[in-house]
């Protein structure tokens, strides 16, 4: 049973780190696109990316199963080609966490990018820097606090994912049972002592990340 608790902590960290890494790698470019470019369907894209933020996790989970299940629109061809399915794997849990955490970074990062003084960016391009160079040397550094806050929020959300994870990855101890899922099982079988410990840990960790998102950004960056 301690096994179940320890593995749930390990899985939570594994899933949250993987999901957050993917969120940053894909979210920053998307936020940049939404902040710095105008194009047809831009606001539609924004809405689509923000949906997981407002939809109930069970709806998000439903769509994920539809897409990535063994017979899903994307999961079907994947299974046919490789014999592997993302359902019931920790990668599936990471995928669910990724989808729900992405909007948090995109929203925050977009706002951070848009708040950077346009004049500074124009000055940079006037001096001869390419868009890429301007982004790297001017935009990102000036937006770093918002980006950090968004990343911390995304990580906290990724760690706290439950509904969509349960539907896509299942609640398998040692394989996909992250802390929220383990708490659910433990509470469901009356093991309140163990559930208590995990709940306390989750509260402390989440609180810590919120603190980091708020103050750390101001003080250290």
């Amino acid at each position, binding site marked *: 049973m301690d096994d179940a608790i320890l593995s749930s902590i390990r899985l939570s960290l594994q899933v949250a780190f993987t999901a957050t890494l993917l969120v940053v790698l894909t979210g920053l470019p998307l936020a940049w696109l939404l902040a710095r470019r105008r194009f047809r369907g831009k606001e539609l894209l924004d809405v689509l990316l923000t949906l997981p933020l407002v939809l109930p996790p069970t709806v998000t989970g439903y769509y994920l199963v539809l897409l990535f*299940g*063994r017979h899903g629109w994307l999961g079907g061809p994947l299974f046919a080609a490789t014999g592997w399915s993302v359902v*019931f794997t920790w990668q599936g849990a990471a995928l669910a966490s990724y989808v729900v955490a992405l909007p948090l970074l995109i929203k925050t990062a977009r706002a951070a990018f848009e708040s950077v003084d346009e004049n500074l960016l124009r000055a940079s391009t006037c001096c001869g820097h390419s868009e890429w160079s301007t982004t790297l040397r001017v935009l990102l550094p000036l937006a770093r606090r918002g980006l950090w806050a968004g990343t911390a929020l995304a990580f906290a959300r990724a760690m706290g994912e439950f509904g969509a994870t349960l539907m896509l990855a*299942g*609640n*398998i101890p040692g394989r996909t049972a992250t802390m929220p899922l383990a708490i659910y*099982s433990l*509470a*469901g079988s*009356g093991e309140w002592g163990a559930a208590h410990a995990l709940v306390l840990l989750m509260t402390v960790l989440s609180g810590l990340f919120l603190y980091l998102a708020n103050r750390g950004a101001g003080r250290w960056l």
Partner: protein
Amino acid sequence: MSSRRAFLSSTLLLILLPAILGGTPTSVRAAERVEITVSAAISLKNAFEELGALYEKQSGVGVLFNFGASGQLLQQLIGGAPVDVFASAAQQDVDEAERRGLLLPDSRANFAGNQLVLVVPAASHSRLASFKGLSHKDVQRIAVGNPRSVPVGRYAREVLLFHKLLPALERKLIYAENARQVLDWVARGEVDAGVVYATDAASRPHEVRLVAQAQDASHTPIVYPAAVVRGTPHQAQARAFLSLLLSEAGQEILGRHGFQRATR
């Protein structure tokens, strides 16, 4: 009125509208009909919905069903859920409820039995023919109920232990939250095989294929007990529901859904 004021007032009105229309004074509510709440193992869903309709027709008392895994239902009871009847898929959960003084012991009765079966997705080309075949390398994922809280998972574990398939098979097991979820995963082809109740397999006959039935000797007899919850304000109505379960009419409905007769 300025257009801004008008907008705010109408928004406020819209939000308050449900409260204005929906609220009824308590004296009116007291005259509404009596309703009992029945917490029942999810495998009983189809049969109980039919039984509930019959009960409502016969007695004029409404029935609210709360379906779930027996272990989860037990936890809800322990947590003080306002339930009138508890119907479980295993003695264990009712034993625990009784031990905690949550039930009226004289109302307890076994009302049905079930069988355990091994199923595969209907569309699968699996050549699985028995429980022992689960150790074959072609079988990657086996859905079973979470033994912590789901009776069908506990029974499945007993069968696997009987055939000496555990602990080797452990890494192939995918735990579901209740009996219907096990069935659903098999039906959708997310797993290669699953251990479900015979009644559940029969509820989706075109989506799952029966491979084998567990021998009686391989698991604790699957018996469904039910009891009235202590402290219910509707004791008479709750007892009446239990009587219906045990009556000829009730047993006929259960039988039609594949359950075995009650063995008192």
